[in-house]
């Protein structure tokens, strides 16, 4: 744990966002500023949780770091290089299952390798290895439609791990799961993260999830998304969410979020009335 805290200054590895902003449909009537002036450094092997009201641009930041979209201002560096396009070392995991239903689990997990033209044996071997890491070794030949929601998300994590990413970008990956499964998946994710040494950037609007997972919680404002506060969490994992420290943290985060939720709500009201 101590090593983790010390290694926070970003070297050539890790991700560095400098003054990042994103305007959707710029220059049109539908122009909409999603992100403004986000400056954030993510150290190697650091677990960052982005917390904020719905529609505050948290996911947009993930897409920008993934390289799927380009920022309209500022710049993003990953491993010392400017992000201009998606790369296999930055894996994105989505809220809904994004497994290809026409492929079986093994083929899904090794999809990235097949894109690179890896031979069948290597693909199979990698699939077996990463599926074992997520505890789904026996599901290797099954099809996604035969798996539960939690299992599918574990396969999605395995697919990301197969690419040996430096950065795991997770867009509310457990939001569609029931509460019990969600808590299990958080524990599972922490295990995977400890073993992989990848940085994790995890988007959620669940406070408890943020408290359970994060090294640092980045609280966002609403429309446009800006960083309102960065709250470090130093308690060792697994964390007791009912401990006094956790309760303190929850009170603090609630206060930080309350204004934003109110503001976002008021704004949405105004939009729906105006429309």
């Amino acid at each position: 744990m101590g090593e983790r805290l010390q290694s926070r200054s970003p070297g050539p590895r890790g991700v560095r966002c400098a003054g990042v902003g994103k305007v959707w449909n710029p220059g049109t009537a539908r122009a909409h500023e999603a992100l403004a002036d986000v400056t954030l450094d993510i150290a190697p092997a650091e677990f960052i949780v982005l917390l904020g009201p719905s529609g505050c641009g948290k996911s947009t930041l993930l897409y920008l770091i993934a390289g799927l979209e380009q920022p309209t201002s500022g710049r993003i560096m990953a491993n010392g290089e400017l992000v201009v396009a998606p790369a296999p070392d930055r894996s994105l995991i989505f809220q809904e299952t994004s497994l290809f239903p026409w492929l079986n689990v093994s083929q899904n997990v090794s999809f990235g390798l097949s894109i690179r033209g890896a031979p069948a044996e290597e693909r199979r071997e990698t699939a077996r290895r990463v599926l074992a890491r997520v505890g789904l070794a026996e599901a290797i030949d099954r099809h996604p439609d035969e798996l539960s929601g939690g299992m599918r998300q574990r396969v999605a994590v395995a697919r990301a791990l197969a690419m040996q990413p430096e950065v795991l970008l997770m867009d509310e990956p457990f939001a569609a799961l029931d509460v019990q499964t969600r808590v299990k998946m958080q524990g599972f994710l922490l295990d995977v993260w400890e073993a992989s040494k990848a940085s994790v950037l995890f988007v959620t609007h669940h406070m408890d999830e943020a408290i359970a997972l994060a090294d640092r919680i980045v609280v966002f404002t609403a429309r446009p998304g800006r960083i309102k506060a960065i709250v470090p969490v130093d308690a060792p994992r697994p964390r007791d969410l009912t401990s006094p420290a956790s309760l303190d943290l929850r009170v603090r985060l609630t206060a930080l979020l309350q204004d934003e939720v109110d503001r976002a709500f008021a704004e949405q009201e105004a939009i729906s009335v105006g429309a």
Partner: protein
Amino acid sequence: MSSARGIGVNVGGQGGYRLPPASALFHPLLAFVRQYGPKVGWSLLSIALFAGLWEFLWYIGVADKRLLPPPHIFLGDFADQAKNFNTAKRWEIGVDPNSGPTPTEAVLITMASSTARVLAGLAIAAIASLCMGVLIRYYAIAEKLILPMVTLLAPVSPVAWLPVAIFLFGIGNGPAIFMVFIALFFTMTLATITQIDSVNRNYINVARTMGASKRQIYARVILPAVLPGLLVVLRLNLFGAWMVVLVAEATGVGYGLGQIISMARNTFNPGLVFFTIVIIGLLGFTFDFALRLLQKRVLFWLPKGQGGLSG
């Protein structure tokens, strides 16, 4: 229709190709009957209701037997009806008028030739429209150059193409196949584009983050993702293909179901018209059934009841 789905789930027949239950292996016939029995039963009842009403109207004298002969009359004498189906080329010089297939064979040949034209037109249109749709979405310049023209031609009734078909292909199989093709090509191209646009963005983004090129994304993500929708589109257009092929055949292709209808009209033979309608209905139904089976086989990953499987 939903009853058949419920039964299918019990039997396990819908996903059974992967892990066939023992009952399906040892009693395929039984499984088949249990899966499709109720559906067939309701279909027969539906037909019986309609035919019964018709017979009743004939019985009380409302339906004139010369204009609307009831089913027992136009289906009653198969041999007599079959005589009208003649696939021998008697009009050609030097051909013995009595040569050629028997009437029953002639009925089958006529059915087969119309079916073959539908199949050929459908296959060409499906492949061409898939290629065209992908081309339009793949290259921006193709979209700019081709899409307006396709959109312009899509609403044109296929009947308007009939003269063109005859100018280009004379008479025979050519114009009939061309008509089926042209009737389906434009709408199916637009449908392909719609399908491509509605591919789950996450699938594409996953492939992109894994370093897939545009070509790889089209071949390995978009193509499999649009297949279910395209098979539904194909099924919907199947009926359109049957309608168009009759129109084309009525203009003179030697023989075919459309030619029989046309002849029945010219010789004032309503019984023959209804007889042919029954044949066309049966053929269309069989086709639809076959395509649905194909859907289940090819698109095993679709959840039941999605993608038109339950229709």
